[in-house]
C-alpha cells in the first residue's frame, strides 16, 4: 500500500485559515488501510478543525466525505455536485488524490492533509515499513525475495557496504541492513552461491530518473 502520515494540524490550519466552508475528503484505498485517510480519519480531522474554530471563536462549516478511491476519475466525479459548495477541500488521500481533484475541478482550492511517505506494508499494528521504491524493473527474485533497492540505504545490488554492522545499517540502529538479512536467508536456504551472480549497474530509466512515468496497456484502453 501507499503509506502516509497526517500533516501536523497547525500546518493544515494555516493552509485553510482563510476559508470557512471546508470539505475533508477521505479515500477508502491505501490511506484507509494505513489509518490516515479513511472515513474515521476524515471525521477526526473534521472534528479537530471544529474544535480549533471553537477555540478561536470562529464560525466555520466542516463536512466530511470519503470516496471509494481518489485515484480513479469515476470516483472523483462523485463529488461534482458538491464541490462548489465548499471554499476549500482537504484531501487526506495520498499525493495522487489532491492532484486528481485539482485536475478534475480546476477552480477548487485543494489542500493535502497528509504527507505521503512510501510504498510498504504493516510489519506490526501501527508500524509500517518501506518495501518498494517503484524502480520499474523488479529484481527481488535475485535476492531471496527481498529488495535491496528499496531497503538498502545505498540500493546496492552486489552485497553489503562497509557500513553494515551487527545486522544494522550505518545510517541508524533502527534500520536493518537488508544485505545482512539477504545473506542470512540465502545461507539458511543453501542458496548462497546465487548471490555470486554479478548484477550489472542498474538502468534507472524505468525509475523516477527517467522523468514522470506513464503506463499504457492497450488491451484496457477503451
Amino acid at each position, binding site marked *: 500500500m501507499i503509506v502516509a502520515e497526517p500533516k501536523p*494540524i497547525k500546518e493544515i*490550519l494555516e493552509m485553510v485559515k482563510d476559508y470557512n466552508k471546508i470539505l475533508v475528503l477521505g479515500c477508502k484505498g491505501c490511506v484507509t488501510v494505513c489509518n490516515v485517510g479513511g472515513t*474515521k480519519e476524515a*471525521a477526526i480531522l473534521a472534528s479537530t478543525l471544529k*474544535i480549533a474554530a471553537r477555540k478561536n471563536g470562529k464560525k466555520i462549516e466542516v463536512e466530511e466525505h470519503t470516496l471509494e478511491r481518489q485515484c480513479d476519475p469515476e470516483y472523483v466525479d462523485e463529488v461534482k455536485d458538491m464541490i462548489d459548495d465548499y471554499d476549500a477541500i482537504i484531501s487526506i488521500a495520498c499525493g495522487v488524490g489532491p492532484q486528481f481533484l485539482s485536475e478534475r475541478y480546476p477552480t477548487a482550492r485543494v489542500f493535502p492533509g497528509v504527507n505521503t511517505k512510501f510504498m510498504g506494508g504493516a510489519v506490526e499494528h501501527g508500524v509500517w515499513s518501506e518495501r518498494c521504491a517503484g524502480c520499474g524493473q523488479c529484481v527481488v527474485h535475485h535476492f531471496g525475495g527481498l529488495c535491496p533497492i528499496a531497503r538498502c540505504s545505498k540500493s546496492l545490488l552486489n552485497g553489503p557496504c562497509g557500513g553494515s554492522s551487527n545486522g544494522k545499517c550505518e545510517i541508524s540502529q533502527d534500520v536493518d541492513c537488508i544485505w545482512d538479512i539477504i545473506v542470512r536467508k540465502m545461507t539458511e536456504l543453501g542458496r548462497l552461491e546465487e548471490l555470486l551472480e554479478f548484477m550489472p549497474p542498474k538502468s534507472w530509466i524505468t525509475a523516477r530518473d527517467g522523468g514522470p512515468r506513464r503506463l499504457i496497456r492497450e488491451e484496457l484502453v477503451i
Partner: protein
Amino acid sequence: MSDNFRPKIVAFYCSNCASSAANVAEGMDKALPDNVKMVQVPCTGRLEILHLLKPFEEGADGVYVAGCQEDSCQYVTGITKAAKRVAYVKNTLEQLDIEPERINIYNLSAGKGQAFVDVALEMNDRVRELGPVLSE
C-alpha cells in the same frame, strides 16, 4: 476564573471496575458534581480518538476517562489502549493551543467509591481553574 463558571465535563467510565466503583460511591451516598456527564462504555479500550474529541467539538470544557488498573483490565489491554488515545488527544489539544490538562485518564478499581467521586471533583476543579475553551 469567574466563580460562576460551571464547566461542562464528559466522563467515560468502564462498565467493569469504574462502574462498580460508582455503585460503591452511591452506596456511600457520595454524589458527583451535576455538571459531569457520565457515559458508560463496555471497556475503555472501545473509546476511539473521535469519541474523545467530539465532546470538545460540541462544547465540553473537559473530558476524562475512568478505567481499570493497568494490570486488571478484563479485556487485558483496554485501559492501555485508552491511555494511548488520551495521550494522542492531549497532543492534538496542545497543537490547537488548548490546555492538554483538559483531558485525563484515571485508573480506578471496583471498590474505590471515594476515588470515583474524587476524580470527578479533581477534574471539575482543574477545568474551573482553566476556564472555558474559547479564547478571550
